[in-house]
C-alpha cells in the first residue's frame, strides 16, 4: 500500500534558523531519503520551492483566474512530500516519524487511492 507523507513546515522557522542548524537538517533529510531508498520504501519524493513561488488557479463559469500565493493561508505550508510503500498505517507512521520536519512542523499521512483494486 502506498502512502503520501505530506510535509508541513513553517517557512519562517527555516528562515530564522542558524545556518549550521539548517545544514544539519538538510543532512538529516539526505540521510533519511537514502535510507528509505535502500530499504525499498521510497516511491517518490521532493521538496518544494517556497510559498512565495506559488500560484493558485481556478476556473469558474469558464473564466480562469490566477492568484498569487497558496490556496490556503495557514501558519504551516506544504513544503514537500514523499510517497512510500508500507504494509500498513503503523509502518507508514514509523517512517513518517523519521522525517526531520516531524520535529519542527508536521507530517500528514494519506493513503494513496488505488484504482486497480
Amino acid at each position, binding site marked *: *500500500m502506498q502512502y503520501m507523507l505530506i510535509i508541513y513546515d513553517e517557512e519562517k522557522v527555516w528562515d530564522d534558523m542558524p545556518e549550521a542548524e539548517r545544514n544539519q537538517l538538510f543532512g538529516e533529510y539526505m540521510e533519511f531519503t537514502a535510507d528509505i531508498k535502500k530499504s525499498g520504501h521510497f516511491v517518490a519524493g521532493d521538496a518544494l520551492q517556497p510559498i512565495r513561488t506559488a500560484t493558485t488557479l481556478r476556473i469558474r463559469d469558464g473564466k480562469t483566474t490566477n492568484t498569487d500565493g497558496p490556496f490556503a493561508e495557514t501558519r504551516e505550508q506544504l513544503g514537500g512530500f514523499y510517497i512510500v510503500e508500507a504494509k500498513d*498505517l*503503523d509502518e507508514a507512521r514509523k517512517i513518517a516519524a523519521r522525517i526531520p520536519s516531524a520535529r519542527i512542523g508536521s507530517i500528514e499521512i494519506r493513503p494513496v487511492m488505488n484504482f486497480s483494486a
Partner: protein
Amino acid sequence: MLAAGAIEATFRAERARVLATTIRVVNGDFDLAEEIVQDAFAAALARWPAEGTPDEPRAWLISVARNKAIDTIRRRVKLREIVAAEDATEGTATSELVAVPDDRLRLMYTCCHPALAPEAQVALTLRTLGGLTTDEIARAYLATPATMAQRLVRAKAKIRDARIPYVVPEASELAERTEQVMAVAYLIFNEGYAATAGDSWLRRDLCREAIRLARLLVELADPASLAEARGLLALMLLHDSRRDARTDGDGDLVLLEDQDRARWDHAQIAEALALVPDALRGGPGPYALQAAIAALHAQAKAAADTDWPQITALFHELYRRTPTAVIALNRAAAIAMWRGPAFALPLVDELKGELADYPLWHAARADLLRRLGKQRESLAAYRAALARTTNEPERRFLERRITALTAS
C-alpha cells in the same frame, strides 16, 4: 429444549471473542465481521435448541463464523471475477483459530488506535468489545443515533482505507498504546460514573463495560503494563463500590464523608484491595496511586478515621508525576481535612489562575470558607460554582448549600 435466553447469555459472554477472531479472519473488515457474527448467532438460535449446546460453544461459533467468512469472501471474489484469490485464512483449521492467543487484545488496540479520534475510539470500543448497540452508545453520550452511527462508520472506514493494522503493537510502541487503551477504558468509566444527565441504567452499564475492559487488560496486558492495569481495575472497582451510597432517594449527591458506608459494596472493595499492593509495586503509575487513595477511603470505618496524612502523601506523589491544577486542588482538599481549612485555603487560592472557570475549585473554596465561618465569602463562592456547573445533581447540591447558608 434450550431457552433462547440461555443461548443469548452464551452469546453475550462469547461475542467479543468470536468477533475479534472473525475480524482477523476477514482481514480487518469490521462491518463484514459483525454481519457474519450476527449470522453465526442466528445459526445457533436455529440449531442449538434441537441439537443441544455444543461442548465448546465458542469454538462452534468461531467455526461457523469462519466458514461463513470464507464463503462470503469467495462469493465476493467471484463477483469481481478475480481469478487468483488471496485467501490466507482457508488453510487455517478451526482448532488453530481457537487455540491462538485471545484476539480481543488486537481488537482493543485497533479500536484505540491513535489515528482514530478519541470519541471514535470510545464508540468503537463500546460497540465491538462491549457489544452495546449504536442506540445505546448514542444515549449514553447524549448524541443522536445518526451522529453515533456516522462516527462508527467513519472509524471503520478509516481502519479499512488507511489500513490500520489488526495487530498487537510491536514492543517499541506497546507501553504507549496500552496507556491509550487504559485511557479509553477510564474515559468510559468516568462517563458512566459522573452523575451528569442521561439514562442512569445505561450509565451503570458503561461502568460495568469499563470494568470488564480493565479485567481484560489485567488478564492480557504485557508484563510492563500489568501493574497499571491492576491499578486501573482497582480504581474502578473502588469508585463503583460506592454507587448505591453516593446518591440519596431523590437522586441527590451524597458527599463521601456523609455516605452510609454499610451500603458500599464490600465484596467488590475486598477484590480491589487485593489488587492494590501489586499495582503499587515498582514505581507506581497514576492509576495505581489513585487506586491507593481510593483504597484508604474504602478502608476507613468512618469518615473521621480516614488516613488524611497518607492520602496527602499519595497526592504529592501523583502531582509529582502529573502536575495538574486539578490534582493540586485535590491535594489541598486532603490537606484541609488533615491540617484544617485555614492551612489549606491559601493553597486553594494559589490555583485561581488556572482553575477560575472550574466549578469544583469554587465549590472547594466555598467549603473551606464555610468551615472557617466566613459566611458571606462562602456564599459568593458557592454562587460562583453554581454559575459554572452543568451537572444537575451538582447544581442541586450547591443550591442546598446556598439555602442553608442564607438561612443561618
